């Protein structure tokens, strides 16, 4: 695999309309991703992005960096909510760093996913083959 260890950070904008489209596409109709009142009723600051939406963007960044690679594993903790305002959007930045390729030929990409400078995913990581 011939990628530089330093990967150019990618920035994505998340809007409420994206969350509506994602709910349809994924089947995740949890109202905390659509309705401020419901989100606040369970102690959230307002509508938040699906954790899996954020992870999907992280995976998109990885596939942009390594278009030919097969993903062997992918995972993250959802440590801070990504609050999505009713108007406009919120920016998510995905940065990545390649760990030294292991003897098994797999490449580990350690990600840093932030929103407004704050990390929103804990230990996000993808392991790639090829």
């Amino acid at each position, binding site marked *: 695999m011939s990628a530089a260890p330093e990967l150019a950070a990618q920035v994505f904008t998340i809007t409420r309309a*994206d969350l509506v489209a994602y709910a349809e596409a994924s089947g*995740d109709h*949890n*109202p905390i991703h659509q309705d401020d009142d419901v989100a606040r009723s369970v102690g959230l600051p307002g509508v938040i992005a699906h954790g*899996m939406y954020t992870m*999907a963007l992280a995976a998109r960044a990885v596939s942009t960096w390594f278009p030919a690679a097969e*993903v062997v*594993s*992918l995972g993250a*903790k959802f440590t801070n909510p990504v609050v999505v305002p009713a108007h406009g959007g919120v920016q998510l930045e995905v940065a990545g760093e390649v760990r030294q390729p292991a003897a098994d030929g797999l490449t580990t990409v350690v990600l840093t996913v932030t929103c407004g400078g704050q990390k929103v995913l804990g230990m996000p990581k993808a392991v790639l083959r090829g």
Partner: protein
Amino acid sequence: MPVDQSLVGREFPPTGPRQVSEDDVRAFVTATGGRYDGGPAPATFPIVLAFDAMNAFLEAESIDLFRIVHGEQKFAYERPVVPGDVLSATLRVAALRQIGGNDIITTASEITDADGALVCTTGATLVHRAAGA
């Protein structure tokens, strides 16, 4: 009301097989801001199957979806999902603990194809926010 501790170790019936179409994959890719030109589904697509299984589990246990916040998700893949796959998911409750009035539910799901072959395993941690929490 806390989630019943006896759930730990329980396996729920497989979700009804779901045929993955190109349109399903396109909708998923488009919703996450990408463009789909055919080929395998994105790495997080199997969440669609895992979510089916989670919904069935929550319904069976009368747990409100809106009280659930996602804590962690991980996938280990045998192969990518491709359009035409007929997949089902089998969910098992792996662990359950209570922290500060919330239930922390750890699930493990196996996603298998029409031949019964494993496509991916996926683990989720779900935070169930108790009423009044």
